[in-house]
């Protein structure tokens, strides 16, 4: 990964172009249930390697449910869910994670009783040598200096913004192929939202494949390459992020209409 640190945005795109399109995440016909109620009705999309793919939608559109379905956290059915050509369908969550997918969950969900350092280590818990991965830890602290100052604090005592940084750092510690971020801006002040998105720009430049869900569409679409608009569990629009940003439907979501 370090060789790619200096890659420019364009460089990442060239790399992405070299890949077969099936190398990223491919989702076809995903349906997800909450109890007996189906809330995601046959969603299909792709997250291409080295790109930022965004799921945009209102509260309740099914963004979180879609992500939970892909990660096996919610019962789901699909024609196809593959990551780097390997099928994830029907696998338990921990096995899906081992394919190189790390989640930054909605609501951050840091381990409140664990310290900042312990939280970061848990991100790497399954990786050989991950428990003492000083190199990646250094990268996380360079990206989020706030965390370096609070390594021994209980994560539950951090501010919302710091918890979001911790959740992102924890996912980085897994050294994943793909980062999945579920509403990283939720509940944060505009200043902190900008801070989080600056970090995402840096992560994109490092070559991570990123799948992002956001209600806060403007910033997300500025960052993303490709985007899908979700409405009541269906994809109603898709396209290049820059074009979608001008869509009236997306503007309506952003304004909360």
């Amino acid at each position, binding site marked *: 990964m370090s060789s790619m640190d200096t890659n420019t945005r364009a460089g990442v795109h060239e790399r992405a172009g070299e890949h077969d399109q099936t190398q990223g995440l491919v989702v076809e016909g995903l349906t997800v249930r909450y109890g007996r109620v189906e809330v995601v009705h046959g969603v299909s999309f792709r997250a291409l390697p080295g790109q930022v793919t965004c799921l945009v939608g209102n509260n309740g559109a099914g963004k979180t449910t879609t992500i939970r379905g892909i990660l096996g956290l919610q019962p789901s059915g699909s024609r196809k869910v593959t990551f780097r050509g390997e099928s994830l369908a029907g696998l338990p*969550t*921990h096995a899906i994670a081992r394919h190189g997918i790390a989640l930054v969950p909605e609501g951050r*969900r840091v381990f409140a009783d664990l310290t900042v350092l312990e939280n970061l280590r848990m991100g790497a818990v399954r990786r050989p040598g991950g428990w003492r991965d000083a190199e990646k830890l250094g990268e996380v602290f360079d990206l989020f200096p706030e965390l370096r100052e609070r390594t021994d604090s209980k994560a539950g005592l951090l501010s919302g913004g710091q918890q979001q940084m911790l959740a992102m750092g924890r996912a980085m510690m897994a050294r994943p192929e793909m980062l999945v971020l579920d509403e990283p801006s939720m509940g944060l002040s505009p200043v902190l939202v900008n801070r989080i998105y600056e970090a995402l720009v840096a992560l994109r430049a490092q070559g991570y494949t990123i799948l992002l869900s956001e209600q806060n569409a403007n910033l997300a679409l500025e960052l993303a390459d490709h985007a899908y608009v979700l409405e009541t569990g269906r994809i109603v629009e898709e396209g290049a992020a820059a074009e979608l940003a001008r869509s009236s439907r997306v503007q309506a979501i952003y304004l909360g209409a």
Partner: protein
Amino acid sequence: MDLFIQVLLSGLSVGAIYAIVALGFGVIFNATGAINFVQGEYVMVGGLSAAMLYEAWDVPIFVAILVAIAVTTVLGLLTEMGLLGFGRLRTPAAITIATIAIAVIVKGAAMLISVRDTYALPSVLGSESLQILGASTSRQTILNLVLAVLVVIALTLFFRRTKLGTTLRAAAGDSETLQTFGVSYRTTARWAFVIAAALGAVAGAGLAPLTVMSFDSGTLLGLKGFAAAMLGGLGNPQGALAGGLLLGVAEAVVAGYGTSAYADVVAFVVLLAILTFKPTGMFGTARAVRT
């Protein structure tokens, strides 16, 4: 005064055992959210198998205790395999109910193997009594207290300082999120059952010299350990120690100054009182649960 010291010592001695049983409840509760009613049977299996090995098979006492701990630990592993593997249970309520069934099976198997006989295990420190402040007590009393304190210290260090311990704490906080980092629910559950069973066996080995062991020694012990765990706050190691010692002393006071016939009632009164007035236990804090 002599009677009081006597009562206090015997209470602490048994209370130390309750504390170790309570720790086992806490470890499994933290990892799975379930109450493991096999916990008392682990104590029985640990104590009974050590005593049987020593008495019936003439195995040296230290070897007998080590083998008993090993046997019980395997039983813990089998419990996890039965509940989460074979039974595919995942919800705390389902696991809790099913542990009752496993407890009955373990008890039945122990009845068949022990042919309903009772067995006794001497103290590893010998049978001479100790004089403390005018009261006479067995050396096992002191050993049990030391044992309980050491177990609490060891568990605390384990949970704070080791990778596995930290992982188990993370599972206690948010097992779903832990799964998204590649740790399966069963891995953490399996370790919890292994640790809880080993704790049960240690408690059994500490208890056996104070009483006699039989196939039905476990059920009541399990309930008392559960009461101690609730008293101290389920899942809190220091709370388990305090809860266990307090319950042991309370029982001894009732037995010493009242009648031993009512001693067993104490645990249930404590359990009812704590569930009614302070369900989080003396040292527990309520925690928010996302649904």
